[in-house]
């Protein structure tokens, strides 16, 4: 495989990785909670797309419009009813809490959907485009563009909207935001809802490309970890940078060492970054 193809693959995959990580990064940044349900939310989103397509022939691009509000409500309620009760507790407690919730959701998915791998196959297939020797399947291309669009939407929301500014304010300085009259608990719930919505949408896009199974959730979660740490917590651009770097490292790594070592490499990179540059490539304090 030549360099141009590796690079193009990395860019395509990198945008998807960024999309996987962005909701996770938002929740971590704003709520200071590592949301271990994130991976299962993504898988649930993928099942939603799979179900809608197979039962009602709703194409995945429209499924995004269904997934976003549905997951937002799910996340919002989860935060309001459960997580807000332990949000001030030490790291250990919030982390274990989201782990417990993840066990429940993941087990429920295995129970209802079984653990087998399924694949959403578009009929007719969209084929692929090739420029010179570089080949990209069209469904992958569409997923990438949608992922970028979602990321851009979040950026605009945080930059331009009133609620977005409130989220950034809470992230920067919780206490000051309270003094300015921001209802922190409700901002937490909105941020968590947004994180869930982004996960659900990411799941819909993943369904276009990867096989679907509850067993894949920890893989997605792992990617979200790595992207956040590489890119730096707290920025949309950081997630993009992290996603691209991860995809590039995996691409180059699997070319030289074989695909089996790509994951190992990415986690070693994660640990190295944590130790040497915990703020990541583009880390800073505000979430924009």
């Amino acid at each position, binding site marked *: 495989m030549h360099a141009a193809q590796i690079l193009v693959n990395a860019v395509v995959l990198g945008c998807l990785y960024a999309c996987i990580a962005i909701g996770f990064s938002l929740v*971590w940044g704003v709520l*200071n909670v*590592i949301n271990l349900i994130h991976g299962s939310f993504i898988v649930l989103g993928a099942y939603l797309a799979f179900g809608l397509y197979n039962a009602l022939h709703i194409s995945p691009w429209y499924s995004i419009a269904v997934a976003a509000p549905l997951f937002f409500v799910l996340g919002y309620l989860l935060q309001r009813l*459960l997580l807000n*009760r*332990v949000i001030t*507790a*030490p*790291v*250990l*407690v919030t*982390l*274990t*809490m989201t*782990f*417990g*919730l*993840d*066990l*429940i959701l*993941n*087990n*429920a998915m295995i*129970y209802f959907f079984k653990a087998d791998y399924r694949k959403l196959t578009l009929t007719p297939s969209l084929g692929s485009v090739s420029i010179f020797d570089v080949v990209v399947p069209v469904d992958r291309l569409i997923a990438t563009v949608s992922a970028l669009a979602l990321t851009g939407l979040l950026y605009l929301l945080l930059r331009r909207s009133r609620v977005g500014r409130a989220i950034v304010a809470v992230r920067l300085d919780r206490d000051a935001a309270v003094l300015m009259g921001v209802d922190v608990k409700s901002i937490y719930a909105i941020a968590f809802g947004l994180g869930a919505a982004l996960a659900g949408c990411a799941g819909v896009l993943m369904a276009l490309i990867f096989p679907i199974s509850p067993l894949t959730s*920890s893989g997605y979660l*792992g990617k979200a*970890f790595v992207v956040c*740490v590489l890119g730096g917590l707290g920025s949309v651009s950081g997630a993009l940078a992290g996603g691209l770097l991860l995809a590039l490292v995996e691409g180059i790594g699997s070319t030289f060492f074989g695909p*089996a*070592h790509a*994951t*190992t490499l990415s*986690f*070693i990179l*994660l*640990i190295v970054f*944590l*130790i040497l540059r*915990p703020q990541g490539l583009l880390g800073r304090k505000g979430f924009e």
Partner: protein
Amino acid sequence: MTKSNIALLVLLAVVASLPLFGGAYALRLGTIACMYAIMALSWNVVGGFAGYPSFATAAFFGFGAYTAGVLLNKGLPLWLCVVIAAVTALLIAAVLGAALLRLRGHYFAIASLSLVEVLRELVNNATDLTGGGMGLNIPLGSGSGVLAEAMFFFYAMWILLLLTVLMVMAVAGSKLGFGLACIRQNETASSMVGLNTTLYKSIAFGLSACFVSAAGGVYAAWVHYIDPSDVFDILYSVKPIVMALMGGLGSPLGVACGAFLYLGLEEVVWRNYIQIHTGVLGLIIVLLLLFLPHGLISLRPANLWRRVKHV
């Protein structure tokens, strides 16, 4: 010796008398109980005493299982394999700890979680040595009969538990334990009074890995077959935390009780709800954190009374 330490030793003695009352099933449960208690007590050294939310338990458990498994296949005796697993884990964890424990809070949690992933993937890919994803068969022992073997592994695990308990008691009553408590409360102030925090945290991390790795070694020999997704299961990292939270962070007696109680719950759930047992486990975790965040220790009569008055 404090009252709670004596109580803990009594509890251990009671566990040791288990073979008098039960057959193979009881021995199997007893072995797992000892293994869980080793994990929870070990985790408590770094998570409870020093206050670092480590998710590395599964990494060291798997490390020990594979170290012993590979060495057993080379024909070394079990005790030697377990000692080697323990000592190498101690050293590796101490070195890793010096680097990883510079991170705090979430960053440390994620780094320790990643350690599990890295080791699992390494084992998965080192097919020549470990059999990779196909798993590793471990030669059967003497062939001295099922019950005798069950007895042997129960006492092997029990002795490891005894050693763990003695280690934890020694740490809790020593300068090391005092220093870890300082680090938990205020790390900056600790170094200001002359405490070498890096050294202390490294020792704590090493000790918390050592016996878990040994237990992994005994486990591998006991079950005769291991594979990466079994022994590097992230649940092995989370269960000790749940046990410690159940019993009450920091108190060795509480943590050991938490481990036994947890096993009891797990067994009941496993038998009755095999299909949804992880979901039920999740539910237990959520309820525990919501309603009993300080563990069973907060249920002491005096505290209950205070709570009643409060209401």
